[in-house]
């Protein structure tokens, strides 16, 4: 009896709720219906996109409009938000099994979505011609095994950058470094010379890298590429970070802090602070350095020249010089290329073939030609597809671009680490987890002087033993 009464109560409550939510939603529902009528018969391709470049969000509206006009039966629907937020939204949507058709991600995320069974192999939906449009190595970043899961938008070389005046004052032949690179020993000497002391305190550091929180990962992964670890796995798919030469590499990094060339508070300096220190002359070289920092520095120089109060407080004119990462003993010169682009996803077990074809078409559209050219130009990069390069030539050139930087970035882009589609998704995911849970935390401790290189190496070995087994990692 009692139970029955309770049920009845709950039922009425549920009805009340639905009535409540129903009437509250008048406005929202109307607009939805309106949209639906619009799209009659059209296949909707959804895309979740971050602000890839400063004006990307404005331009995307035009791109999409043009695409929709060209393709009467397909419509791209875009949602934009900041970088971090799009990642979070995408991850919730993927967990919920309803991702957008296209998302803009870093290529290192491909394995993660593939492992969830949600990435779509688009190689069968693209023409041979369309795939050949992209530089092979860069396209490889979106491959795994035989599948192609997305298309790259650009390849951004992540290296370091210096203040020209300071470099020259320290007697560094930066043009030669740009062309020929430098060894760790040369680099260490150079940044020692860059230090300027005033009243017993350091006024200018030789080198500075943003390492606060999770960005410590950048410092490690960009530099480790030149220390003989182009990838966490060797050809036999054994984990390499356990190699004893890791200790030497970590000792080398530590030495630059102990020399006084880098601030000992490195681990708490975030990207904004480090750029502020660069512009205010508190460091000679900074990292990570992107090609587009040249523009950011030039903008500030312009404001300084005009006496604009909005120039960064205490800043000085800075000529930004792109520099390669030094090569450590036992390593070869590689460049760390962040390849970002459009991944194709599905939440259905048997997706509609026609729809997937449209998705692939839309992804190709976004990643190629004028779209690629304009995005790359804004990031001070060269496009990585043929159609993009053709379109790039037609764009009005950037004013006052430093040609030495342009050449350096171009040659570095050619040196980026080869893609490794042979690493199985599952293995890649394990390596990422070791990196996040062991390497980055220990590395933060190392920067703070609270963990020794040996301790960190031991922690990596222990973790690798547990995750990959006795035979899964390099011991000697």
């Amino acid at each position, binding site marked *: 009896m*009692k139970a029955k009464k309770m049920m009845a109560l709950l039922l009425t409550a549920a009805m009340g*709720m639905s009535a*409540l*939510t*129903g009437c*509250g*939603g008048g*406005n*929202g*529902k109307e*607009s*939805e219906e309106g949209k639906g009528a619009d799209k009659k018969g059209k296949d909707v391709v*959804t895309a979740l996109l*971050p*602000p*890839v*470049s*400063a004006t990307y*969000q404005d331009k995307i509206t035009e791109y999409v409009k043009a695409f929709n006009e060209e393709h009467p039966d397909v419509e791209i*629907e875009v*949602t*934009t*938000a*900041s*970088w*971090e*937020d799009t990642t*979070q*939204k995408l991850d*919730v*949507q993927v*967990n*919920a*099994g*309803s991702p957008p058709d296209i998302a803009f991600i870093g290529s290192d995320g491909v394995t993660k979505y593939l492992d969830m069974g949600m990435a779509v192999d688009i190689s069968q939906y693209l023409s041979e011609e369309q795939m050949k449009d992209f530089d092979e190595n860069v396209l490889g970043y979106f491959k795994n095994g035989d599948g192609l899961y997305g298309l790259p938008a650009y390849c951004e070389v992540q290296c370091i950058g210096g203040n020209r005046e300071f470099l020259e004052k320290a007697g560094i032949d930066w043009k030669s470094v740009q062309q020929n690179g430098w060894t760790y020993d040369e680099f260490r000497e150079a940044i020692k010379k860059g230090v300027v002391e005033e009243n017993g305190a350091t006024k200018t550091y030789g080198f500075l890298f943003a390492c606060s929180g999770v960005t410590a990962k950048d410092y490690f992964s960009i530099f480790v590429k030149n220390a003989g670890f182009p990838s966490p796995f060797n050809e036999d798919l054994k984990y390499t970070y356990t190699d004893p030469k890791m200790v030497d590499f970590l000792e080398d990094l530590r030495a630059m802090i102990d020399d006084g060339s880098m601030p000992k508070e490195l681990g708490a300096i975030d*990207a*904004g*602070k480090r*750029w*502020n220190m660069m*512009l205010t002359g508190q460091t000679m070289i900074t990292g990570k350095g*992107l090609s*587009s*920092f040249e523009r*950011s*520095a030039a*903008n*500030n120089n312009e*404001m300084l020249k005009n006496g*604009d*109060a*909005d120039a*960064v*407080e205490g800043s000085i004119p800075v000529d930004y010089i792109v520099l390669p990462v030094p090569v450590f003993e036992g390593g070869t010169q590689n460049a760390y290329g962040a390849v970002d682009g459009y991944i194709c996803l599905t939440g259905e077990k048997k997706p509609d073939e026609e729809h997937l074809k449209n998705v692939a078409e839309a992804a190709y559209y976004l990643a190629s030609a004028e779209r690629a050219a304009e995005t790359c130009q804004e990031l001070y990069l060269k496009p990585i597809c043929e159609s993009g390069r053709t379109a790039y030539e037609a764009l009005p050139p950037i004013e006052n671009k430093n040609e030495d930087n342009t050449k350096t970035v171009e040659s570095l882009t050619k040196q980026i680490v080869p893609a490794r589609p042979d690493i199985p998704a599952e293995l890649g995911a394990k390596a990422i987890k070791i990196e996040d849970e062991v390497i980055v935390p220990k590395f933060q401790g190392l920067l703070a002087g609270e963990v020794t290189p040996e301790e960190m190496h031991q922690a990596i070995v222990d973790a690798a033993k547990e995750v990959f087994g006795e035979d899964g990692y390099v011991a000697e």
Partner: protein
Amino acid sequence: MGLFRNYYGKQKYKQYTRNGLIAMILIIVAVITLFPIYYMVISSFGAPTEAGGASYSLIPKSFSLDSYKFFFEYSEYSFRWILNSFIVAAVVTVSNVFFASLAGYAFAKLRFPGCRFFFFLLLVAMMVPYQVTQVPLYILVVNVLQMQDTYPALIAPTLVTCYNVFLAKQFFTSLPTSIIESAKIEGCSQPQIVWKIIMPLSKTILAVMAIMTFLGEWNTFFWPFLVCNSEQMQTIQVGLKNFSFANTTYFAPMMAGATISALPMFILFFSLQRYFLEGVTVGAVKG
């Protein structure tokens, strides 16, 4: 007569010294807590340029309202975002104050079968971290109920929160049961008791609940961001976050947006302050 002693005549200086000392402590703490707001406001008067990093200075260097203009011109929906936030926060606030005080009263003063069980259930649910409840909630609202891009999707999950029910219950517990008993003897029904006795006695806490709920809803970011894809259904917080770019930030306009989004809270706070300070005495109601 109050908690603090009042001094008279020659001893009056003691009161002044005491109050002065207390004021000093209070002001120091206030300076610390107010600092972020101060920083937010002065930064918003900077120019809407794409700065490499945040500006770190205590005194405004330039004064321009361009960033405010930039904020409103950034999207045609700037006003719509504020309106959306307002609608959602207002509905949620009203429903929370209403339903949470009813439920709080029931849990505090009425004895019914299952009373402890239901209350315990409410508390336990608060204890499961939202990181894991978010996904099923998203599946329910978006995949099952198909409510994305609607007001109900924004409102329904927080229509009445466990937190507010708990808050109301704790406050009503301290009201003397005797006045409820006497009201009952005079023939008041339960809704009448709530309306005529409990509510007037609890204006202070209901005002506190209102402002906290409104503020929480106004500032909430992630849920509206998850369930709204179209620009016109976004709330102000979601819109604001669009100012953060890859490696650079439109710093001043972001702060201008933050200042604009804070304004309604100022207004609400000061319009409700009357209730905050009305020290309701039980005696006054009785008489």
